[in-house]
């Protein structure tokens, strides 16, 4: 009898632990921000109160209670155990687009959450054992209820586990940061910082490519752009390679002060601001707040440092005009090189032409009056700005404009940023799956529009993280998409509603608009419906947190 009660708790405990692991994925996607995670959790009933465990508990406990026969009967406990098994058995995972990364931090957090769960289960066991045994259904029902509560509380256990590990994590982080500081002091590199609401990773990739035609530059890998991400890059890669001369650090701002902290570690002597836009607007509230967070990268420069700015973005131009540091370079693809305003941009791209072979444009250095024709296989006109920003730094570091032009010819797009491939069956796939933004999507759609041989299919789940602008920007996305796409698949009905409105507003034929629940369905649709000569654009592929 006692054994059975223990087993009931044990089965539910296992279920709770499995749920903790499952939930850790979403917690990780929310960057371990408990408030955001819990808000996400509570937004949908099925998220915080999963159906099967609830039914199993409810039905199991009810049956156990009403089928009680005689004192000492094992029947209620057996029923409760069966119910526990049904309730605790994990649900089948839906499509996993962003799996849980088992980092050391996750392991520590999970361990803490498991310890909590076990402690609670033991406390529950002690309580159940202390109950009088004359009516067998009572302990069984209580054991089942406590086990069920444990499963429901799994997200809280996870969050509590994380909170408990906070001091440990802080200590480990401080040590990791100190190590990175020591590595950088020894490495004696020129550090180049890059920030912006978007375009960071592309600019970084291009700059590394251009500098590497002459020097040895190391960019932070992938999209590592947090303090810890930069530390990982330093401790793993720079520590083991002393041949480097440049470290190109991408810096993201998720909270004010974050860039300042990365700069305090890396001490950039050259800083690039690419764009200020509504990305992460919901976290910052206003564009001004975003701009002031980005400006931290300029404020951190030494007086003889170099600031590089995108003149075409009004917020970034305002930074240029603030006058710090002494050496500032602005670039533009909008200004006429024949009529440059006083103290205007130094590097200007003109005659921009875009085809499926890439971009070509003329770069004018208004200081030296040099002029060079650039040709790159990159797609998307926003890349002209990214290339110009990288060119400005390379020029300042002594790479002649002619050599920059040569390096630019062999540029490759950064991962999942307008990467174009033609499949063996003759379907062109354009992958622009990385977190889309209002500027990038327009250019990506224009690239889709350049394909004139067949259907032009857009697959998108819309844009997120734009705060109050989310609805209007998504509607605009729909309106623009109608110009360039012949067919559209929207992934996830709820969040793409504004896109749908936009499409229909401008008269996009409803029969060419499809809505699917998952990306897998969208892929299936295109695989069965597209033919040789057709083109598909994957725009903004989101992690599951938004899809489920």
């Amino acid at each position: 009898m006692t054994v059975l009660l223990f087993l009931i708790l044990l089965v539910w405990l296992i279920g709770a632990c499995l749920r903790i692991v499952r939930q850790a994925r979403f917690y990780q996607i929310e960057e371990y921000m408990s408030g955001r995670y819990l808000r996400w959790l509570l937004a949908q009933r099925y998220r915080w109160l999963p159906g099967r465990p609830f039914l199993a508990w409810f039905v199991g406990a009810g049956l156990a209670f009403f089928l009680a026969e005689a004192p000492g009967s094992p029947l209620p406990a057996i029923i409760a155990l069966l119910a526990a098994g049904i309730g605790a058995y994990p649900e089948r995972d839906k499509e996993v687009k962003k799996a849980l990364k088992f980092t050391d931090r996750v392991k520590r957090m999970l361990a803490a959450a498991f310890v909590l769960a076990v402690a609670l289960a033991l406390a529950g066991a002690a309580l159940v054992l202390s109950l009088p045994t004359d009516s067998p259904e009572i302990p069984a029902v209580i054991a089942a209820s406590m086990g069920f509560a444990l499963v429901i509380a799994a997200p809280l256990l996870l969050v509590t586990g994380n909170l408990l590990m906070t001091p440990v994590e802080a200590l480990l982080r401080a040590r990791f940061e100190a190590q990175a500081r020591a590595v950088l002091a020894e490495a004696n590199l020129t550090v180049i910082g890059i920030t912006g609401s978007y375009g960071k990773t592309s600019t970084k990739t291009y700059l590394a490519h251009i500098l590497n035609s002459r020097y040895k530059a190391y960019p932070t890998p992938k999209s590592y752009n947090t303090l810890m991400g930069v530390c990982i890059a330093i401790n793993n890669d720079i520590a083991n390679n002393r041949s480097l001369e440049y470290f190109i650090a991408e810096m993201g701002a998720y909270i004010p002060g974050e860039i300042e902290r990365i700069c305090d570690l890396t001490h950039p002597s050259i800083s690039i601001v690419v764009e200020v836009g509504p990305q992460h607007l919901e976290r910052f509230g206003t564009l001004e707040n975003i701009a002031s967070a980005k400006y931290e990268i300029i404020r951190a420069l030494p007086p003889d440092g170099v600031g590089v700015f995108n003149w075409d973005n009004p917020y970034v131009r305002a930074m240029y005009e603030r006058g710090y540091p002494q050496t500032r370079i602005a670039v533009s693809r909008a200004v006429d090189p024949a009529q440059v305003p006083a103290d205007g941009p130094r590097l200007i791209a003109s005659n921009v032409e875009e085809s499926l072979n890439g971009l070509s444009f003329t770069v004018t250095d208004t200081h030296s009056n040099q002029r060079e024709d650039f040709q790159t296989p990159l797609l998307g006109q926003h890349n002209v700005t990214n290339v110009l920003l990288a060119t400005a730094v390379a020029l300042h570091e002594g790479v002649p404009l002619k050599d920059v032009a040569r390096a630019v010819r062999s540029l490759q797009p950064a991962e999942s940023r307008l990467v174009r491939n033609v499949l063996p069956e003759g379907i062109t796939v354009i992958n622009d799956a990385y977190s889309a933004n209002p500027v990038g999507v327009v250019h990506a759609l224009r690239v889709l529009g350049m394909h004139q041989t067949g259907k032009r299919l857009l697959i998108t789940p819309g844009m997120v993280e734009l705060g109050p602008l989310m609805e209007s920007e998504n509607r605009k996305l729909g309106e623009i998409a109608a110009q360039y796409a012949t067919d559209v698949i929207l992934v996830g009905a709820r969040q793409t509603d504004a896109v749908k409105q936009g499409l229909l507003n401008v008269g996009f034929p409803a029969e060419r608009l499809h809505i699917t629940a998952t990306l897998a369905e969208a892929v299936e649709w295109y695989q069965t419906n597209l033919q040789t000569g057709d083109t598909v654009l994957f725009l903004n592929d989101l992690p599951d947190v938004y899809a489920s």
Partner: protein
Amino acid sequence: MSAKRKLTVAVLFGGRSVEHDVSVVTGNQVLRAFDPERYEVVPVYIDRDGRWFTGAPLLDLKNYRNEVISLKGVEEAILSPATHHHGLIIDPTAGRFAKSSVKRLDVVFPALHGSHGEDGTVQGLCELADIAYVGCGVLASAATNDKIMTKTILKQHGIPVVDDVHLTRAEWEANPDGVIARIHAALPYPLFIKPATLGSSIGVGRADDEALLRASLDVAAHFDRSVLVERAITDGVEINCALLGNAQQIRASVLELPVSWDKFLTYEEKYLRGGEGMKSADRIIPAPIDAALTARIREMAVRAFQAVGGRGTARVDFLVKPEAGEVYLNEINTMPGSLAFYLWQHEGLSAGDVVQQLVELAREAQAEKRRSTYNYQTNLIEVAAMRGLKGVKGRKAPRPAQS
């Protein structure tokens, strides 16, 4: 905090060469020439046996009287050929209680003369390490270090050199009479006999008759496996010209005329006159020859440097008969003593300017190399792994150890 980072330059000097002592003097001049505000300079001393050391006491010439390793602050160090070290490994054989460390370098400055330093060997090490280095590359260093090879290249480019005969030690030992006959048939006395690859004047002999010729050949063959026999230019003067630059942009210095050439430059005369090495050696600058001849020599120096594929710096030595207007290129020193600072002074360049330019030229050359690709991916290994290696049948493939 300033945006400019200091460049770390390792100056190599000493070396397993008969010119070890001269190189120590040159090395110390170079070390002192760097602006400490802009460069971090690391002295690296290679002793006569070829052991490498680093440490602050090496900056003081007085410290070279005894074994330098006994000095406090001097440690063993080697230049690693591995690209990710990109510098010196300090205390490479550190045991249980000490730890070896890596000192990263931006540029290597080999202030080494003669063998194992000026001959492409150290340059090859720098190439492996992928570190920028001052002066000529492997091929130009190796070619100019060999007088026979240099003359072969110069003749190809139509640059006048003194008539010569060359032979190997094996030839000389197997058939001395044949060698003498060959020399007599080609060249008149007096003759100079030189080991092909040694710098300075060591092993060099002058012969006015056959007896002296045989003796000089014995001496020269003792120093090198190849020997060069040249017609002596009896009434000429030596004229030297220093060069600075890479590829198409090479600057030639004012010309010098080292004074007592008429007899012969013995080792002591060439380097040890006066207390401070080359500086106070007797020389006339600019060389007292007319402008047209000066221009011709300077142009020829640049052309010769380009012919051997040189870069960075060199001092090109000529034998000149000013009255007859005859000019012969004698040798190209890719790491001249004192880096010919005294000539550049006349051009308005301080020693600090010269070393700074040399470092920039080295970085420029390194940048040029970066344009070549050394990494080419193929599927050859995969294919070989799948098919097995051909041509090694009959041998069993090694099996992984069973445990």
